[in-house]
């Protein structure tokens, strides 16, 4: 039951599934977007005359052609759809073309003549915060500040036996979804618009597009699933506005599918951060003071920058109970692309720093890394990291003890080191909030319908980006209702037919599906049974495979139950559970992970290879084992890439990495051949919040675990991701590991 095949599986493995970028329509045109070559410049003039003369060009749009608001952004619409005066990053759009072919559209883009006056480029947060820096936005270059304070931090530091201060740098990570942004926008005969473009929140796209196009939302339909990956990257608008403007301008369907280079240039990335932490312990090894300063490079526009900073601030002390905590964060506008939502949402960055501190403190006071964690980890009844009440679980200690046992086992197994190699073992733990947090609109909902054809239709406004929400819906619905999967029809990803469920983000999908079914099943089943008993005159009925059953006997098919009668509908709307304590952005449901890794360091090259990656995850009951394991393994490897390979390199605010030849995601050879995942499903008896989502937790604590394994192997404490072989090699040479660690006759270098 727990290893269900995915309902979208067959179509995927046979190639039959039409992704939205696979669609084509009669009379369809191809769109391309002209983007700024300058990271910061004033637009002096835009001339589209030449381009319009090119045969096959059907429409060109600029800022003059936007009927509504020339701006987008999930929270604050400060990103121009088509720039008028100023461009703020090399992805900023200035014009878009629809033409008979991609080649013609491409050529037309070259023929559009935009005159720019370059402006000073703010390619670092330091430059952007300098008082002499030009303002990128009317209110200056600070997008957001966030903070948290408890206890008297100075006093606490004065009592410490050891204090560690370190600054950690984490890179700009690319989502690298395999399907780049794209789809088709179709103007319908009745004047409405259908947008076949992937997103994580169809209704939000509809809202944003209506505002840009000056159209009522009801005239826009968003078809948004399936997607070839998203990981947070397609939550914000990408090519939709351009396709829509062009479709409206030409009255013809317009397809845009960005090339990888175009995607690299325009898409949002994970926030690079510089995190300075100062942390102290007392005589007994108790953490008593923890001070954090986060500087996030949010790039040119807001999108979800503020919320991501809030999340990082919340998780600064993570699962540790520390009496004095002082956290300050600042999110800074620069000309470095746009940073935004990415699986982990600020948690990955802060956890790398936090766990790094714990390891350093342990080393400083000569305490075992496990001991210091056990001593300081939260217990079941402890408050959340912002002092808020949270759903009680023993997740932190549960995952820790499981990981600790494995860690000890791995460490004591005497492995034969190969020539010029060193092996190291490391571990880390974390906790990660789900949902958007207190004070943020976080509505969810779903609908169950017995259709005229006898199908039980379950529909949600969630999107399928590969994470397996369809499988989750199928499993939970069949389990809760008792029907078979053949009885179901699942409808998602189309604003024309689904209820609003909120965004498919923040690990909320699984959780919200389960909560919806808890609310829907009673009224729905009651209605069905009532009708069944009217029809058959029987009692003691229940839902089962194929239809209504009575005392173990099949009575009536769903088809017969539906036949000729009104549809039976149950609908629910509710909010994601939040803490009873009104603390802004604080979370209520958390998941936990404990990670153990083993690495092999190459003493000749400084390269690190992860040879073992284990994650224990506590997230409530597992809905579907295959989906669960897939999320954790996949998230773990994405984080492995973050730790060792991935960095969108920018120089002077221009991208150096333009495609997957220089931006490196892990290949099959970069990952351990066998990954391992252990779920801890136990929740306290009184818990009624069901399964938590696991979309993010697998990505959070892998980096610090690898860092800790590197320390174990080489004595090097890394403070920068991705870990560069050059740094490692330097450290090897400085420490003489190279000479000392090998055969007696070690002349090399």
């Amino acid at each position, binding site marked *: 039951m727990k290893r269900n095949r995915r309902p*979208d599986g067959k179509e995927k493995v046979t190639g039959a599934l039409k992704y939205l970028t696979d669609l084509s329509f009669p009379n369809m045109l191809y769109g391309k977007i002209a983007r700024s070559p300058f990271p910061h410049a004033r637009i002096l003039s835009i001339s589209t005359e030449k381009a319009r003369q090119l045969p096959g060009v059907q429409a060109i749009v600029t800022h003059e052609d936007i009927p509504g608001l020339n701006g987008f952004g999930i929270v604050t619409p400060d990103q121009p759809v088509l720039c008028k005066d100023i461009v703020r990053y090399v992805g900023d759009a200035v014009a878009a073309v629809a033409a008979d072919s991609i080649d013609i559209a491409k050529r037309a883009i070259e023929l559009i003549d935009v005159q720019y006056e370059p402006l000073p480029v703010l390619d670092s947060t330091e430059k952007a915060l300098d008082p002499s820096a030009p303002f990128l936005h009317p209110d200056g270059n600070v997008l957001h500040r966030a903070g948290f304070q408890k206890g008297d931090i100075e006093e606490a530091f004065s009592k410490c036996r050891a204090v560690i201060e370190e600054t950690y740098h984490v890179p700009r990570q690319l989502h690298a979804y395999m399907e780049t942004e794209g789809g088709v926008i179709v103007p319908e005969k009745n004047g409405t618009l259908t947008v076949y473009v992937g997103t994580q929140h169809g209704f939000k796209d509809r809202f944003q597009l209506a505002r840009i196009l000056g159209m009522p939302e009801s005239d826009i339909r968003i078809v948004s699933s399936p997607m070839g*990956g998203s990981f947070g990257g397609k939550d914000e608008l990408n090519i939709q506005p351009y396709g829509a403007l062009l479709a409206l301008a030409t009255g013809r369907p317009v397809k845009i599918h960005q090339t990888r280079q175009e995607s690299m240039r325009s898409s949002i990335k994970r926030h690079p951060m510089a995190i300075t932490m100062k942390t102290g312990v007392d005589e007994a090894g108790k953490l008593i003071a923890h001070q954090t300063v986060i500087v996030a490079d949010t790039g040119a526009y807001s999108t979800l920058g503020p919320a991501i900073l809030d999340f990082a601030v919340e998780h600064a002390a993570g699962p540790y109970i520390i009496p004095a905590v002082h956290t300050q964060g600042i999110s800074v506008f620069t000309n470095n692309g746009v940073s935004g939502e990415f699986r982990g949402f600020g948690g990955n960055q802060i956890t790398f720093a936090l766990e790094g501190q714990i390891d350093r403190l342990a080393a400083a006071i000569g305490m075992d890394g496990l001991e210091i964690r056990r001593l300081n980890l939260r217990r079941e009844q402890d408050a959340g990291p912002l002092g808020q009440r949270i759903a009680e679980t023993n997740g932190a200690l549960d995952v820790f003890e499981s990981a600790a046992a494995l860690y000890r086992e791995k460490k004591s197994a005497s492995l034969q080191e190969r020539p010029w190699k060193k092996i190291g073992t490391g571990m880390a733990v974390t906790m990660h909030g789900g949902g958007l947090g207190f004070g943020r609109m976080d509505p969810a909902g779903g609908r169950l319908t017995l259709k005229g054809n006898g199908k039980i239709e379950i529909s949600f406004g969630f999107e399928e980006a590969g994470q397996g929400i369809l499988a989750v819906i199928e499993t939970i619905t069949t389990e809760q209702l008792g029907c078979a999967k053949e009885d179901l029809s699942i409808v998602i990803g189309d604003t024309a037919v689904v209820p609003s469920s909120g965004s498919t983000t923040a690990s909320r999908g699984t959780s919200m599906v389960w909560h919806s079914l808890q609310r829907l099943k009673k009224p729905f089943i009651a209605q069905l049974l009532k009708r069944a008993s009217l029809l058959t005159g029987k009692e003691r009925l229940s839902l089962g495979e194929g239809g209504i059953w009575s005392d173990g006997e099949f009575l009536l098919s769903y088809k017969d139950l539906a036949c000729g009668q009104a549809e039976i509908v149950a609908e629910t709307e509710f909010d994601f559970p939040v803490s009873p304590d009104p603390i802004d952005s604080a979370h209520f449901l958390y998941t936990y992970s404990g990670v153990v890794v083993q690495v092999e360091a190459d003493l000749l090259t400084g390269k690190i290879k992860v040879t073992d990656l284990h994650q224990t995850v506590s997230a409530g009951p597992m809905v579907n084992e295959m989906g669960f394991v897939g999320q954790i393994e996949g998230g773990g490897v994405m984080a492995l890439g973050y730790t060792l390979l991935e960095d969108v390199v920018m120089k002077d605010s221009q991208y150096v990495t333009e495609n997957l030849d220089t931006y490196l995601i892990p290949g099959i050879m970069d990952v351990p051949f066998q990954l391992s995942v252990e779920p801890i499903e136990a929740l306290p008896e009184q818990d009624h919040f069901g399964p938590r989502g696991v979309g993010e937790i697998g990505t959070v604590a892998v980096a610090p675990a690898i860092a800790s394994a590197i320390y174990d192997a080489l004595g090097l404490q890394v403070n920068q991701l991705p870990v560069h072989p050059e740094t490692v090699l330097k450290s090897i040479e400085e420490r003489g590991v190279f000479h000392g660690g090998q055969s007696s006759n070690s002349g090399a270098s």
Partner: protein
Amino acid sequence: MEVNHQTAGRAEVLSVSFHLNGELVQVNTSPVARVVDVLRDELDQTGTKLSCGIGRCGACSILVNGKLTVSCLLLAYQLDGASVTTIEGLSGQGEMDPVQEAFLEEGGFQCGYCTPGMVMAVKSLLDSNHEPDQHAIQGALAGNLCRCTGYGGIIRSVQCAAAKRNAVR
């Protein structure tokens, strides 16, 4: 020497004919059109995916004369007379290839966008190696990137597919 334009085979707009999944097809196209575009746009065979466009991800992998090839680096003229198998050709008459079955059973995919290319690469591996070990699996799939699974499910799928095929044989 005079060039004999006839024998030298000059082509500006090319009429290429080749076997696609067993059927003879003919396309009039630029000789330097990318095969991935010919398949997707001219022949509406969209199972073959396009992701990086420079041979760096494997999403567009197909078999040309039985050999795994990335169709984004292959040009239309190179198809002339070839025999091409795409993902659509693996499951004839509704019956899936054991490789596809295995991917379904073992969770060898999530978003599914790398899957057609990945399945073709696995197919190519198992056609020449019935019991691939770790080294062979890693070598054969080195050119196919997956962002979702972390490769765990894919590796299990390959092992399962090999077992399935061996059971049939």
